[in-house]
């Protein structure tokens, strides 16, 4: 995935995250949040799907963006591969962490 498809995906994920964040802020400021409210919210399948899609958007968006920075500045092949691997590892770890959290609410 490079060029146009990466560019498009970066923008689509940005739009989704922007909408999600606005809704999340409105929810958080108008709700009296405590543990049980938080827990009940995350037990809804729709919220779980929304959060999952947000996580996926964030990971893809970050991957495309960081890969762009690495392609711009890091030219020696081994350094570029190392940097890309570290980023991929970090993002994947975060993805699995999110899955584990959501799994806990199933």
């Amino acid at each position, binding site marked *: 995935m*490079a*060029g*146009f498809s*990466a*560019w*498009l995906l970066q923008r689509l994920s940005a739009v989704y995250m922007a909408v999600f964040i606005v809704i999340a802020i409105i929810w958080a400021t108008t709700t009296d949040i405590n543990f049980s409210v938080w827990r009940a919210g995350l037990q809804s399948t729709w919220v779980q799907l929304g959060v999952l899609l947000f996580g996926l958007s964030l990971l893809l968006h970050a991957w495309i963006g960081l890969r*762009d920075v690495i*392609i*711009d*500045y890091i030219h020696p092949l081994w350094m570029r591969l190392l940097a890309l691997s570290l980023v991929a590892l970090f993002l994947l770890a975060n993805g699995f962490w999110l899955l584990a959290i959501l799994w806990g609410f199933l």
Partner: protein
Amino acid sequence: MKFIIYRYNPEIDAQPFEQPFELPDEEIEPGMMVLGALLKLKQQDETLGFRRSCQEGVCGSDGMNINGSNGLACVTPVAGLKQPVTLRPLPGMPVIRDLIVNMEPFFKQYKSVKPWLIVDDEPEPESERKQSIKEREKLDGLYECILCGCCSAACPSYWWNPDKFIGPAGLLQASRFIQDSRDEATRERLEQLDDAYKLFRCHTIMNCVQVCPKGLNPTKAIAQIKKEMLKHKI
């Protein structure tokens, strides 16, 4: 008027250096451009190297870095420039001598977008290929480029990847032929640009727009290419 000019002759100098010049006030004429001053300074030191030809902003030979910003010496008035006026070669481009840079890599990128009409009609039509007024208007802001290189030499993405990223000047021309109603290779042109480097190293920094001596907008032209890609893909 005080000047500081980048000097480097690879045959003699181990390192580039900055040479101070002074142009007496009585030699400064009303409406004088940087190029006029350079021509007078060259009388003081005839080893000073720079390119120039038409002297009126049409040929694009005397692109250089004037007080930190790229522009054409022949259309930049000396009045109003902060002193000492610092003149350097276009940044990111290999220096041949003093203010003269090697434009070869720049023109290689320009050539890669096939900056000519590609048509597939045999035999050739008897008369010219016509455009409506609306179709012709789409080329405004694209065809006026004089290929001075000021924009590409101001683009950080072009500095980092001059061999792979086409740069604002080349992409402006790519857009000019993608927009052209007479061209029949739009799809091929768009496909050729669709990789990680050629077009998509542009991060809309917009230095190109800021420095273009002809007031053109390569960033907008690049956005139009992306829009065309969207139309063709979806």
